């Protein structure tokens, strides 16, 4: 038989099964468009104009790899559902005498058509939207854009190659499955005499184990997780949630349904009778799909809501990172005057007024503190779970910054130790061999800084004046501690945001002429770089979430067709017995509702449990306004719930249309 014959049959098959293939194609086109856009953005030379170009490219490239992998995973999964419906057809071909290689040809042409249609439409859509997405990203990044127009083949062939590989992988697995199955088992009607899986002891154990897994994961992430490991932990937690959810759905939920069945006052009501019985059979059989939806939903909420709050909270992050409008650090006591002059000159040039210019001096370095003995040193002291730092400053700076009015004499200090370290009443401390009298002792809770992730134990020593500090510095130098004093200048200016951006540029130019200036940063710079970075996260978060949502819709759509087709004979029986259509609809509405909203409810629980960890991760990015983040997450949850409710009604209508046809 000529290949063109199989090609024609494959085409007819796709037309015949268009209900299934159209949904498949829509998801294909969307993922291909997303992948093409990521690749296109990564390769576009105009991106070099963006702040943090290298990070941006890296994040986009990782996005491409991630999209490719999740596409492969979901395609394999959805293919399982799709192929279940096609197996009978393939069995018929085999029964008619077609050889496996003929069936392979049909499958090959079907995949080829879908691949070509998906790739062409996806890349075409990508081509149409590439400028819009590019401009959108740069607008989000709040930086001037340099769109390099034109058609490039590189993203096209990369996209086609990646999806060719994915589709070939799926095709080969389908061919293998058909060859592995006997014709009789292929011909068997799906759902034929599908037994109601009875609750067994194993199920009870599985359900309890699932609850323990989820409970354990909740407890762990909220108590024992090292904040620096949050990102790795959140991935691990998602994995544990998935396994736990599967066990809970397949065991504990059925246990609950069984319990309801035992309650005569509930079960023997016309509204619940059929609903509970069908749920008991449906929940366990659908446990895997429900778990996948649960995890997709969790990922969508976590991914999208964190990136949205990160982006919307950019201003807050910049303000937290820099309370002042700007900060300059230099190594020389003499040059700090030059730095201050530079600030005033730059302000005058731009036409703004310097409202305040605070200068301070600091000696800071990593250390070890023996809490019991009150000894600071580098040797002979046991290190703690976090690094320890000490900052030595002068009283005048401290009183001004903290709005206090302490007094110190020579040899006296004001000590501030970390609030997480045990508080001891020291009369003296040993600071690298120097005996210092402790006049005041507080902990960092009294002088709270930014509520950020804790990287180290912070300790502060405040000495009487600059002369004492330089003397102490000299003595430390003699002992081999070579850390230099740093001089800081924090400034606050009047004017608009634009004025401050201009001041930034002028001041940067002036400071670059002072050789001892180590560091210059400002609120405006922070805002610019943070907008660029957060926009990329938002871009990736939203695109990947959209892909997840697409797959979620896709899985549900298939499941609805599958379930409805299997349920149609049951509904016919119910109608024959005399059940009203409204009763049937009510029963289906309740069953589907529970199956639909069970994973969502669990996902909300997961998100609530992960919230502490999510906010810790946000703190790494200086988003410390937890109330704001909570608001973003709640609003996004409501939004996605609304989308889901609409999806549910759509799926319910599809179901009803099939069963009451």
């Amino acid at each position: 038989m000529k290949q063109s014959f199989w090609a024609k049959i494959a085409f007819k098959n796709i037309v015949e099964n268009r209900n299934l293939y159209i949904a498949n194609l829509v998801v294909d086109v969307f993922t291909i468009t997303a992948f093409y856009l990521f690749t296109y953005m990564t390769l576009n030379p105009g991106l070099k104009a963006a702040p943090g170009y290298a990070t941006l490219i890296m994040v986009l490239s990782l996005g491409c790899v991630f999209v490719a992998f999740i596409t492969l995973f979901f395609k394999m999964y959805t293919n399982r559902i799709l192929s279940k419906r096609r197996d009978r057809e393939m069995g018929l071909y085999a029964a008619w005498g077609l050889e496996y290689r003929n069936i392979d040809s049909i499958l090959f042409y079907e995949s080829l058509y879908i691949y070509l249609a998906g790739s062409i439409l996806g890349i075409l859509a990508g081509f149409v939207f590439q400028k819009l997405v590019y401009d959108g990203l740069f607008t989000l990044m709040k930086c001037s854009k340099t769109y390099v127009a034109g058609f490039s083949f590189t993203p096209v062939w990369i996209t086609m190659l990646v999806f060719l590989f994915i589709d070939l992988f799926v095709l080969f697995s389908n061919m293998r499955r058909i060859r592995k199955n006997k014709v009789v088992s292929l011909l068997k009607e799906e759902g034929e005499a599908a037994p109601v899986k009875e609750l067994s002891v194993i199920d009870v154990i599985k359900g309890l184990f699932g609850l323990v897994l989820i409970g354990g994961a909740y407890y762990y992430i909220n108590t024992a997780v090292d904040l620096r490991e949050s990102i790795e932990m959140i991935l691990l937690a998602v994995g544990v949630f998935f396994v736990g959810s599967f066990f809970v759905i397949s065991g504990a939920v059925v246990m609950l349904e069984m319990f309801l069945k035992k309650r005569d006052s509930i079960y023997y009501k016309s509204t619940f009778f059929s609903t509970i019985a069908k749920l008991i059979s449906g929940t366990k059989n659908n446990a895997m799909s429900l778990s996948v939806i649960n995890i997709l939903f969790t990922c969508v909420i976590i991914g999208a809501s964190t990136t949205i709050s990160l982006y919307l909270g950019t201003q807050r992050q910049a303000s937290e990172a820099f309370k002042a409008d700007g900060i300059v650090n230099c190594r020389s006591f003499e040059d700090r005057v030059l730095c201050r002059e530079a600030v005033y000159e730059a302000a005058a040039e731009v036409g703004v007024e310097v409202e305040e210019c605070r200068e301070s001096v600091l000696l800071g370095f990593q250390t070890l503190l023996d809490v019991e003995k009150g000894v600071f040193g580098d040797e002979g002291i046991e290190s703690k779970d976090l690094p320890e730092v000490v900052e030595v400053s002068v009283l005048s700076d401290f009183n001004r910054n903290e709005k206090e009015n302490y007094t110190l004499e020579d040899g006296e200090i004001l000590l501030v130790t970390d609030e997480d370290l045990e508080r001891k009443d020291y009369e003296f401390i040993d600071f690298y061999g120097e005996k210092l009298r402790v006049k005041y002792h507080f902990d960092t809770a009294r002088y709270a800084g930014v509520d950020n992730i804790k990287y180290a134990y912070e300790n502060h020593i405040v000495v009487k004046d600059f002369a004492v500090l330089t003397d102490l510095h000299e003595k430390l130098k003699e002992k081999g501690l070579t850390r230099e004093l740093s001089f800081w200048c924090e400034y606050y200016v009047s004017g608009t945001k634009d004025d401050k951006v201009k001041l930034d540029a002028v001041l940067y130019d002036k400071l670059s002429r002072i050789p001892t200036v180590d560091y210059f940063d400002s609120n405006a710079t922070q805002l610019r770089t943070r907008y660029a970075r957060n926009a990329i996260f938002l871009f990736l978060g939203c695109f990947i979430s959209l892909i997840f949502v697409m797959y979620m819709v896709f899985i549900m759509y298939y499941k609805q067709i599958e379930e409805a087709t299997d349920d149609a004979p049951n509904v016919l029986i119910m109608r024959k017995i005399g059940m009203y259509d409204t009763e049937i609809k009510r029963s289906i509405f309740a069953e589907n509702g529970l199956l639909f909203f069970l994973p969502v409810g669990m996902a909300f629980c997961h998100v609530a449990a992960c919230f502490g960890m999510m906010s810790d991760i946000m703190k790494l990015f200086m988003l410390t306004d937890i109330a704001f983040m909570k608001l973003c997450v709640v609003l996004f949850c409501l939004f996605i719930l609304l989308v889901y409710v609409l999806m549910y009604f759509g799926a319910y209508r599809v179901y009803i249309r099939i069963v009451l046809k």
Partner: protein
Amino acid sequence: MCEKMLELKNLRKIYRTGRGAVQYEALKGISFDAFAGDFIAIMGESGSGKTTTLNIIASLDTATEGNVIIGGTDISNMGNREICRFRREKLGFVFQDFNLLNYFTVKDNIAFPMVLLNKNKKEIDERVRELAERTNITGLLDKYPYEISGGEKQRTAVARALVCRPALLLADEPTGALDSKNSDQLMELFQTFNELGQTIIMVTHSVRSASKAKKVLFLKDGVIGASLEKGGAKDEAFENGIADFLYSAGKQVAGR
């Protein structure tokens, strides 16, 4: 005089295909009555209109013309909701392919129509137990339909059909999917319920099954061609009578 349970008045059913261009008249004026305690078998060749007649009586289909009066109520012009209500209260069905719900246990399959009528649990339990004993499926109540044999499934279907004490028990080829032993058992069950006063209308191809009825109607090309009354005859004799009738009818057709 016995109560008239069913009255069919000049039933006509025309199927239209396409845009009405092609018409097929399945029933051309069927009229007959059934009284309380009757057991009527309807026989006929494929396409003679047996199942159409039963479906119209069962209100699963509507007649193009004519009336169906069950227990004095004309169901021909009832609305959908009324028909559903009427069906669940007054009619019981037994189908060839059992029509049991796989996700219900045998007990729940039987109880389902009573639950739809919002009967209380105690009443449901008593009735289900009583019918299970009579149909000899007490030991199967907690099993699922896919765990029991065809004969057991059909006995479950009979129990379900009778659970609401229907005015009419309608059976469409109830022995069609059963072997001879199970068919006999089922027909004995029908006879037992009939003796207890249950009115039964049954469509069948099987002469042996029809012989258990008190009366047989022969449908031919959408009309009642003939009928046989059992009277006081025994089952075997009536079976022979039906077979003779069918043989001679067949010969007449062949001789034309």
